[in-house]
């Protein structure tokens, strides 16, 4: 097991290094140089020179790259050119919206998908299965930001149960905070839940075909007992992987959904940074998102190996 974790950790580190090269190089190839790009066409030469010095653009590619990475490792993400505050400060503030939102959506999606997928599998071929499969087919096809607009239309404008957007801050209390995140989380969760429910269904169906389920049934267990005691745990293994992978989709999806609901999260930060050409912010936030995704994939791999010993031996 330790060997497996080590190998995965090594590959995690390698992915991070290569990802950081890619991101850094992308920002480097900005037409012209980053300083004049950020300041626009009408900038004075001495302003550009000053920004070049501030951004540390005068060193070689390698020293600048190492400086950036070294800074990130020690928590210094650089200074935002437009906000004039440390990027780490901005990120820390925005993560408090984006992370709870992604987790909220992940929990909702799992809570909906697992039971729904189980019902569909246990009533295979019946009306419930047919209805669920139809609904998930529709759920996969709906763009989450459009679904978000429909939710606003119904629950904020017509029924007035929720506000149409904005975030009161966690200072306003947990309830107010989560209430503001509820519509965005539903909008993010439903399309993902549709995918997850389909995977849950097919995974459970496949497990129910296994010999050990037949043995359990022959032993005298009812179908429900066999499902609960033997099939469910095994069927959950692929579902677990997908849940892990969905986290990255949710983080990315949150970027768009935050724009629908005007939530002050990482997504809005990144879009504002793009329009204001604040490359320091773009670079660091993108790196952070990629780091989160790679880390989650790593954790899923490890959990997977813990749950399924067969994988450990193969590695």
């Amino acid at each position, binding site marked *: 097991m330790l060997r497996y974790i080590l190998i995965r950790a090594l590959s995690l580190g390698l*992915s991070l290094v290569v990802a950081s090269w890619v991101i850094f190089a992308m*920002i480097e190839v900005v037409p012209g140089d980053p300083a004049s790009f950020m300041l626009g066409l009408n900038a004075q030469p001495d302003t550009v020179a000053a920004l070049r010095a501030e951004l540390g653009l005068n060193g070689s590619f390698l020293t600048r790259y190492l400086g950036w990475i070294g800074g990130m490792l020690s928590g210094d993400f650089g200074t935002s050119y437009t906000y004039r505050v440390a990027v780490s400060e901005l990120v820390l503030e925005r993560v408090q919206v984006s992370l709870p939102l992604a987790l909220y959506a992940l929990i909702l999606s799992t809570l909906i998908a697992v039971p729904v997928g189980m019902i569909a599998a246990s009533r295979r071929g019946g009306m419930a299965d047919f209805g669920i499969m139809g609904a998930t087919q529709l759920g996969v096809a709906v763009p989450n930001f*459009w679904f978000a607009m429909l939710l606003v239309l119904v629950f904020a404008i017509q029924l007035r149960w929720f506000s149409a957007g904005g975030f009161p801050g966690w200072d306003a209390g947990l309830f107010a905070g989560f209430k503001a995140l509820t519509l965005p989380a539903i909008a993010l969760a439903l399309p993902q839940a549709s995918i997850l429910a389909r995977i849950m269904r097919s995974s459970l169906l496949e497990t129910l075909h296994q010999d050990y389920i037949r043995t359990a049934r022959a032993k005298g267990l009812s179908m429900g007992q066999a499902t609960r005691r033997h099939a469910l745990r095994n069927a959950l293994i692929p579902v677990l992987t997908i849940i892990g992978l969905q986290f990255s989709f949710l983080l990315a999806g949150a970027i768009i959904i935050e724009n629908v609901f005007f939530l002050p999260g990482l997504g809005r930060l990144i879009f504002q940074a793009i329009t204001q050409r604040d490359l320091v912010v773009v670079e660091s936030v993108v790196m952070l998102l990629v780091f989160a995704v790679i880390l989650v994939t790593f954790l899923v791999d490890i959990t997977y190996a813990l749950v399924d010993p067969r994988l450990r031996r193969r590695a």
Partner: protein
Amino acid sequence: MSRLPPQLWVGAGLSALFLTAALLSFLWTPYDVEVLNIASKLRPPSVEFWLGTDHFGRDMLSMLMVGARTSIAVAVIAVGIGICIGVPLGLAAAARRGSWLDELIMRGNDLIFAFPSLVIAILITATFGPSATNAILAIGIFNIPVFARVARGGAMSIWTLDFIMAARVSGKSITRISAEHILPNIANLLIVQGTIQFSLGILAEAGLSYVGLGAQPPTPSWGRMLADAQTMIYTTPRLAITPGLAIVMMVLGLNLMGDGLRDLLDPRIRRTRA
């Protein structure tokens, strides 16, 4: 040969409808989408304007038709990028399975997977500015590992078959075997995956242009229509509902078609799904 799966008919029908509308838009639309007609702004659906008009007086049906063109073009080219680069990579990896080439290709793919497509798009647009071309690039890059994986997985199972051994014994090179014997045998897989990626491409394009990273004005696109409609959702929700429905129907059609094709082309899946 059993009869064709019903979802294939429905899916192909829906897809054909949008494809026809997109192609027709090159020759004819009910109204010109680039002409603003403030006098007839925000008209409800009528005989004159089947789906009504937007806040600039542009005909919604015409906008949707031209928007379909943008969506389909972006998705088709993005899938093309994925197939043209991903499939050869996957075939090469399968042919030299376990070699450093295989490792390099698969780890490179893992890396692309680590960047959600939206993040790739953000990086590209932050650097080169938003445009439909950059949206295509962002979606297309994400398609490469998908097709590489499908091609590699499919090809590896074909490589173990006897007729491939026979081809090797007869002196054919690895490249020739991949092109002449492996590729035709994994074409089914690629077609099904292509349909799925096509529908994901439509969704991704809509998302990108919604946040302003895709097609730029005045090119109509479904995502941008939704972004414009959002500010008027209190007064004219119709403007937000129609483009959204278009996206849903197009994606639903492609997904149904993909499912139908899979059932039709892969008897093994047909058996386990039944």
